[in-house]
């Protein structure tokens, strides 16, 4: 059997790589890809806890399914916003999108 701590360590690593991508990338689409990585790391954790703590219960998988739905909604709305900004301002670089900055 694979120890639970292996899954947690791997998920922590993927989450931190995704966090680096969100903080360091210039392109807004690349930032969204970093967010997808972070959501996936969280999902690994949720499913691992379900398997090792309450495998007879549906709650752990339910959490993961809700995360799937929210991730799909987030990707659709985020990419729509990026395409809309690209149409109006001709840029997808996060630093140049400063319409609401004083």
């Amino acid at each position, binding site marked *: *059997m694979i120890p639970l701590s292996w899954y947690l360590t791997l998920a922590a690593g*993927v989450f931190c790589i995704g966090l*680096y991508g969100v903080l360091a990338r210039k392109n807004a689409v690349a930032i969204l890809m970093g967010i997808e990585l972070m959501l996936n790391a969280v*999902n690994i954790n949720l499913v691992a806890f379900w*398997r*090792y703590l309450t*495998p007879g219960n549906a709650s752990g998988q339910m959490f993961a399914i809700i995360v*799937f739905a929210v991730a799909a909604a987030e990707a659709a709305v985020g990419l729509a916003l990026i395409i809309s900004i690209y149409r109006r301002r001709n840029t*997808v670089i996060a630093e140049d999108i400063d319409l609401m900055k004083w």
Partner: protein
Amino acid sequence: MTAMQIIFLITGAILLAASTMVVTARNLVHAALWLIASLFTVAILFALLEAGFLAAVQVVLYIGAIAILIIFAIMLTRRVMQDSGPQTNTQWWLGGLIALALFGALWFILPSVVYPLANASVPDNSLKTLGFALVDMNQYALPFEVASVLLLVALIGSIVVAGDRK
């Protein structure tokens, strides 16, 4: 070392390598392809955790829908975003430092937490249990409906936001 552990280690190594390529690749289309690779290894991890339904949903929904949507967005916005030059902002080192610090903190905390491990196996009808839990009023029918309303709102919202106004 059992066979499962060896499979886990190989999958985990591929996942970490692919994720690193996602955040460092200069060409965004390559980054999206690496994202598909890492999403697929996550599906393998779900299969290792005996969550077969989630592994299938991961492939269908993440790779089939979200990754393709991201590739479309990259191709629609490609003209101004040339692949030459640095793809990171000026504070990339600070972001790396924060990510490393977070990983260090998690690594430090991990051994000190004791989880109430169940040591049980997954019942044969776990998919049936999940399906009934989704529509049972006393369990997760309400979150399920809220998730579907959220998806509908996101669908309409993204059409309105991205739609071409004349």
